[in-house]
């Protein structure tokens, strides 16, 4: 634990292997020194291809150090599930007088500053982790990840 909390990163893929591998690759490419937390959330609970909202929420809570959490998703249901969770989260925050929901909130809720970042999965993960590890805030991490769309390859 460093003094200043770092933005955490969550990688949501249809595949557990892809999420874990990209997390490992990003850690490897981000170099030495203090690394921001990066947590994979890949596949369904039974290990199949798909998206698990529980895995996403759990990963976000592990990645949360108090500076916010950037989520990068691969495609389809991974993106839609994060968006649906964020919409629910925003509504619950809006009317937090909902007493019956606060019980769920304990372990089923995303951390307060969780943001879905519009970025390519692998390149965005590397850019986000490098940026987050410098101590940059959530806006800068999101921007760096999104800029990865602009790296032309041919």
């Amino acid at each position, binding site marked *: 634990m460093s003094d200043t909390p770092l933005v955490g990163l969550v990688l949501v893929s249809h595949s557990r292997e892809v999420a874990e591998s990209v997390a490992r690759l990003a850690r490897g490419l981000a170099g030495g020194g203090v690394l921001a937390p990066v947590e994979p959330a890949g596949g369904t609970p039974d290990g199949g291809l798909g998206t698990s*909202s529980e895995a996403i929420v759990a990963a976000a809570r592990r990645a949360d150090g108090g500076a916010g959490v950037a989520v990068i998703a691969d495609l389809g249901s991974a993106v839609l*599930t994060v968006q*649906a969770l964020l919409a*629910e989260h925003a509504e619950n925050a809006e009317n937090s007088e909902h007493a019956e929901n606060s019980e769920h909130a304990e372990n089923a809720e995303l951390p307060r500053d969780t943001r879905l970042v519009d970025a390519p999965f692998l390149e965005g993960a590397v850019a986000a982790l490098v940026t987050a590890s410098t101590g940059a805030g959530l806006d800068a991490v999101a921007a760096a990840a999104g800029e990865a769309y602009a790296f032309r390859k041919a």
Partner: protein
Amino acid sequence: MAQVDAAFLRRWLGRVSEAVGREAGRLTELDSAIGDADHGHNLRRGFDAVAAGLENEPPATPGAVLAFAGRTLISTVGGAAGPLYGTLLRRAGKALGEEREVPDERLGEALRTGVDAVGQLGGAKAGDKTMLDALLPAVAALPDYAAAAQAAREGAEATVALRARKGRASYLGERSEGHMDPGAASSALLFAALAEVAAGE
């Protein structure tokens, strides 16, 4: 017009669960033609969890029934149908508020709100060969439940000729033509079940 209470909506979702269980093979078959062959089984897992949850701890208001069902689908389906149907029901539930009974028209308005939210979430429009091609005509026909079921069925049938513009099927281009969209097919089941429950009242 008739009033809708929590028990009515619990019966609806229970019947959806039965229908999805019965039709899971067909839905997955439709999805194997143009998708990733998981729609029926994903939905069955989701609606089984909805039905079980509603039976164990029946919420007291129509809004709470739909909100519970929506949250459950988001957390249990595992494919794109989870957040899409989950958002539909959750937003509809929120729109119903906390009253213990609402008129049919209010349920219709709430489901229209939910379907609008599906469009926003997925970014699809009518004619993109998605569940919206069944959902939009269905909610437009509410509060006439029988007309809504027929509109959903016809909307689903009409997706056969369309080219997919959203989701994995869109990568197939013209090869997506000639197959019914699995999401539109499951949406037709939802509204068929609603009409059956309403007819039994």
